[in-house]
Structures are given as structure tokens and as C-alpha cells.
């Protein structure tokens, strides 16, 4: 990396002379070695490197890590949390802002829409809706257990992890059949 204060071009006159003298005439043309150097400041160099890094491939991480209960449940905790909170946020803001846009938004509307759904579709749908809540709640208990310095061993983590999975399935099934 060259960093010249003045942007003077660099003269490669020797190459020029050499190239013009030598004639390799495989095709009857002049072959000349040419190297061009453009001076850059450190900032420009860093920017160009950053641009190149954007186009470079990324090492695989989530795709190659061995599936384990630890990080699967952690990801599931975050994903269910975002899903539940997102639903709450969207519902509340929609209820608040709907009249401003001319739409009526009511709990009766949603209840009416849901009642149109056939029963055989409703029970699995309710399970799919209840499971994130149940899982997030029980895994939250698991996190609070860890925060009070219990079950902080590998065996404890797996034990509590499987318990959370079992409890959440049972709870979601119970809620779906309500």
C-alpha cells in the first residue's frame, strides 16, 4: 500500500523501454509487462478491503455446528420469545392505530374470524399457537433456575432441557384441547 501525500503518478520508464524493444512475435504484436500502481490513503485502503470482504464467502457456522440440545433450545427460546412479543406488539399497535386508518379492529372481529375455522383445523392450530408460549414459559423457568445457581452442569442442562420439552408438549396439548 502506497500512501503518497501528493498524488504523483509513478513512472515505469524502464519497463516501457524494455517493452518497446523486445518483440515476441507469436502473433506479430508487442507484449509488454505492465504494472500499474495507484496510490491510496490508509482510509481508502481500509474501505477497499471492507468492500472486498463483503463479497467474500462467509465461513459456515449454524449450518455445520453439531445439533445439540443446548443451542437448539436456546435458539428456540429466542425465536419463540420474538414470535410471542411480536404478536403482542403488532396486536396492540394495530388496535391502537387501526381507527386512524379507517379500519375497525376488535376482539369480536378476531373471535368471529376464528369461529369460522373448522374444528379439525382448530385443534392443531391451537397447539401450534400454544406451544411457543408453553415452551418459552418453561424454558424461562429453566433460565431462572440457572440464574439462582442450580443445575449448572452438563447433566443438569440436559435433564432440565428434556423436562422443559416434555412439559411444554403436555401443556400445549392440554391448552389445545380446552
Amino acid at each position, binding site marked *: *500500500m*502506497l500512501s503518497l501525500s501528493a498524488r504523483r*503518478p*509513478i*513512472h*515505469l*520508464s524502464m519497463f516501457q523501454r524494455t517493452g518497446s524493444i523486445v518483440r515476441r512475435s507469436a*502473433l506479430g*504484436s*508487442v*507484449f*509488454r*509487462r*505492465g*504494472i*500499474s*500502481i*495507484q496510490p491510496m490513503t*490508509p482510509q481508502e485502503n*481500509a474501505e477497499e478491503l*471492507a*468492500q472486498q*470482504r*463483503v*463479497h*467474500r*464467502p*462467509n465461513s*459456515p*457456522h*449454524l*449450518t455445520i455446528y453439531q445439533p445439540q440440545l443446548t443451542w437448539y433450545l436456546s435458539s428456540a427460546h*429466542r425465536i419463540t*420469545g*420474538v414470535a410471542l*412479543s411480536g404478536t*403482542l*406488539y403488532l*396486536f*396492540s*399497535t*394495530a*388496535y*391502537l*392505530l387501526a381507527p386512524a386508518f379507517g379500519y375497525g379492529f376488535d*376482539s369480536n372481529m*378476531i*373471535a*368471529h374470524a*376464528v369461529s369460522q375455522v373448522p374444528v379439525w383445523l382448530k385443534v392443531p392450530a*391451537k397447539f401450534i399457537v400454544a406451544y411457543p*408460549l408453553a415452551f418459552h*414459559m418453561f424454558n*424461562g*423457568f429453566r*433460565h*431462572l433456575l440457572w*440464574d439462582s445457581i442450580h443445575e449448572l452442569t452438563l447433566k443438569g442442562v440436559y435433564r432440565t432441557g428434556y423436562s422443559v420439552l416434555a412439559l411444554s408438549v403436555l*401443556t400445549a396439548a392440554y391448552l389445545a384441547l*380446552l
Partner: protein
Amino acid sequence: MLLNRIGLFSCKQSRIINLVKPITNIRPFTVTSISRIFPPPPQTIQGTVNDAVVFPPRSKAHGSIHWNFERVIAIMVAPQVAYALASGSSNAVLNALLACTLVPHAHLGFESCIIDYFPKRRFKVMFPLLMWVLRGFTILTFFGLYEFNSNDIGLCQAIRMIWKS
């Protein structure tokens, strides 16, 4: 240093100074497929490579107090939700308490997500922007939930009604 990609042969008469075009047509050489899960943003170095890393300033407000506050809110949310699910009851007090604890809990969770995926060090503009957007949404949510609990039938009752319909 910008180099000619095939800078060794030039059949035509070239000037002494070659102003080279930026390299845009290079494809990375990979054997496996390029997977773009969480591609890194353009990486920048503050200063030069020889400067030491600047650590964020210590602050209890962003450290231990924040952590304690998160756990206290979580401890307050858990029995309310468990009780609401188990008993299926719905009254004004439960709705109000739930709104007052669920919304901060969700806000803190979203904050953790933003801090994890858009770290302040790397996203100088996006991070504060997302934080303020989140705060705006949280305020709207809290207000909307308050309106819902006051004008409509209340959070627990609404969920019960939708569940049983």
C-alpha cells in the same frame, strides 16, 4: 494497490500510467455453496491496525443493574402467565399487572436481540435507530394494551374468547 487482473499482456500501446478499473468481476473460489445466513456487514477498523481496541466504558446501569432488572421483571411475569393459563380467569387487576410486566419483558428481550445482531461497535447508525424504533413501538404497545384493557374486554378475556370460539 490496484493491480491489473491480467496485467501481464497488453497488445496495444499503453501509456505509462494505467488507471485501472476497480475489480468488480471476481467471484470467490468455493467448493461448497455460498450460504448467506447472517452475512457480516462491511468491516471497518477504527484508526489503523496498530491502534489498541477501545473498550466500552464501565457502567453499572448497563451491567449488573440492567441484568437484575431483567430477572426481576421475568420473575414477575412468570406466575402471572402461569396463573392466567391455569385458571383461565380474567379480571381487571390481572390484565393491568400483565400489561405492566409483559411489555417491559418483551422490550428487554427485543433489546437483547438488537444488541446481539446489531452491535453498537459495528453499526454506528443502525443501533441507535433500532433502539429508538423499539422504544416507540413499546410505548405504542403499552398504550394500545391500556386502551384494549379499558375499552375492550381485556387481554385475558379476549384470549379466552378467541380460544373458545
